[in-house]
């Protein structure tokens, strides 16, 4: 409760939550405001925003409603962001926790694997994965998760390395508690705040990675993602720039919201900081 109150007292965190709630609102109400298929033909192509009252945000080069795609795209982008982040954070924490807690040979082994992933540029690896396994929305999401975990693992490992020698962890060893308890109940909660903050970065990057894939027309073309919309606007970028700019601003705001929420969580989750305010 104290953490919640501290969070609610921070204006940037509230602003970030407001943005995320707006995006969530778009995602939830998409079916209601735009019940028709957002990828279906709606009207004359490339109408400027405001030119036709039926299309407040205009139409894309194929004559599809940009507003409808924006609302439905919020679903896709949020889903990709959340699921890919969950995958990356779970793998990263598991690898980092085990490596950092046990150290020695286990640490060396796991960190070599992590480095092997890290030395490849993650977008390149993502392209390879998508090329091999296809570009359905599921494989794209899993692939993004698979290329995003190494920094999480390194961060978790660093936290574990310092925390595992703390006296309270030793006290639990002396109490005869099993390793699983030490890792999950003692060390992990203390290691989480920086990981949670970093998860917001992972989520932002996941949304960006999907957009980048879509821009190269390598993402799933059958879903109305924001990235796909930017990709559609590529050919008319110099004349009808709004086709790319509108989803671009949506991505920018979403990522800003995610980052602010992450920062707010970081400030709120530390009980000592919170009580000192």
């Amino acid at each position, binding site marked *: 409760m104290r953490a919640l109150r501290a969070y609610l007292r921070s204006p940037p965190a509230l602003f970030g939550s407001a943005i995320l709630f707006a995006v969530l609102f778009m995602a939830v109400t998409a079916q209601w405001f735009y019940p028709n298929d957002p990828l279906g033909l709606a009207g004359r192509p490339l109408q400027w925003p405001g030119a036709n009252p039926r299309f407040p945000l205009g139409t894309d080069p194929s004559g599809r409603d940009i507003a409808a795609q924006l609302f439905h795209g919020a679903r896709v982008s949020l889903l990709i962001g959340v699921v890919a982040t969950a995958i990356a954070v779970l793998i990263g924490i598991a690898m980092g926790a085990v490596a950092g807690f046990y150290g020695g040979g286990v640490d060396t082994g796991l960190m070599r694997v992590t480095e092997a992933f890290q030395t490849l540029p993650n977008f390149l690896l993502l392209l390879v994965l998508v090329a091999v396994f296809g570009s359905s929305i599921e494989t794209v999401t899993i692939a993004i998760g698979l290329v995003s975990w190494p920094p999480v693992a390194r961060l978790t490992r660093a936290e574990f390395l310092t925390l595992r020698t*703390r*006296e*309270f962890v*030793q*006290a*639990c*060893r*002396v*109490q*005869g*508690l*099993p390793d699983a*308890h030490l890792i999950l*109940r*003692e060390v992990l*909660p*203390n290691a989480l705040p920086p990981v949670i903050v970093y998860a917001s970065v992972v989520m932002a990057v996941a949304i960006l990675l999907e957009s980048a894939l879509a821009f190269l027309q390598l993402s799933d073309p059958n879903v109305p993602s924001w990235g796909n919309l930017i990709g559609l606007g590529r050919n008319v970028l110099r004349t009808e720039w709004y086709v790319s700019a509108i989803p671009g601003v949506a991505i920018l705001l979403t990522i800003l919201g995610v980052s602010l929420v992450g920062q707010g969580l970081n400030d709120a989750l530390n*009980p*000592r900081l919170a*009580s000192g*305010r």
Partner: protein
Amino acid sequence: MRRLEVEGLSIRLPRGADREFAIQDVSLHLDSGEILCVVGESGSGKSVTASAVMGLLAPGLSVAGGAMRLSGEDLRAKSPEEWRRLRGRRIAMVFQEPMTALNPLMSVGAQLSEMWRVHLGLDRREAEARALAGLREVKLPDPEGALRAFPHELSGGQRQRVMIAMALALEPEVLICDEPTTALDVTTQAQVLALIKDLQRRHGTAVMFITHDFGVVAEIADRVAVMQHGRVVEQGAARDILTRPEHPYTRALLAAVPGASAPAPRPLSPDAVLEVRGLSKTYATRGLFRRRRPVRALDGVSVTLRRGATLAVVGESGSGKSTLARCVVGLLGADGGEIVIGGAPLPRRRREAARLVQMVFQDPYASLNPRRRAGAQVAQGPIAAGTPPGKAMEEARRLFGLVGLDPEAVSRFPHEFSGGQRQRIGIARALAMQPQVLVADEPVSALDVSVQAQVLALLRDLQARLGLSILFITHDLRVAAQLCDEVAVMRDGAVVETGRIGEVFAAPKHPYTRSLIEAIPGRALLGA
């Protein structure tokens, strides 16, 4: 001559702190050639007073009223630039932790000669010659070598000597020492105190010495000012205050200082609950390119703890006493020798060992998980050993009552407790496992004297009620004398002397034990 005058000084804390003023209406004066000890427990405002005089108040603190004068000059009117020129040249300071006060990437000679080069504009050769003279004056062994050494290559006491040489480099009028010997071993502390006193006499410097230790006060002070909650409650000549304290707080502080005389010996049980035989442990530290010299932390250590008794393991830092404690509770594996508890060797499995031996840790702030409720941390051991959670929590409440805490406090988080209360939680956590042996690793060294006395009284009381057998690790002989029946003195990983504590203190056989006892600060005045 009056060097430093502080008159009615008040310093305001930032809003939302636990009180409005850090110090309130503080008046002190310091004459040339005298040592004024400012004594108080943590939070008394003694360090804030020193930083105000240095013009180094922490951000958020502000001077609310009063005056500060250095040889008659008003200090409050100084600009930051004037302050900067003043510091080092006319007021110098020696800090508590010499390792963090020195730049680890600069040689000692370079840091020391910087004083003359920056303040007086001397050239390099001349500054280095003065640095060498300075190191000679603080009696560093091999001053030429020390000049080229880096801070990590010196011992703690040597680093503090370098800090003193640096502080005295420009012959300041006022020297402020903020707990300069707290981080040092007793024998080193005694040497550094003697050095400060000797230098102060020769240079006629006025010294403001901040400490929490009345033993140190008795050793060094000409006059004493006692601070409590940001106010000076009593000041006067050292001898008067130490022998005839008037304020009740001063009296309480003095009463809490443990005397070095042991209580009357009590009959001890003949059977041993813990036997350590020929234990050895070597740390092989590996460097990046070269193998460093292996460190023998324990070298054939044998000690015996009798059932229901307390054995003090006394030694300075690096003596191996903490390694011994960690081996006994199974946190470290020994290389050789054996540990026998209740007739059987210490089991390797953590869960079984937990029933036999428990530990109370040194740092009350680091030894509790900040994110879990206090009661859960006490109950978790028994729960892991198979006690039903409800019963374990009930037991935790009972233990909280036993160690003098409110049983309802089990649902609070560690940061809601004071240092002494946290140490009580640590004791309750250890007792929850109903161990045969309790290992206490410096359990009171991080606490204020008055709190220290309370925790020691609690341990004594618990021992009488529960028949605990305690292995008590400490660097402080006075604390050992308060609580322990027998003592083992350790040096460089080996036990040099063992025996009944009263006998060892009254007639030490080993020269090292003798030097430890002689180094106890304030023996002459406070009564050994």
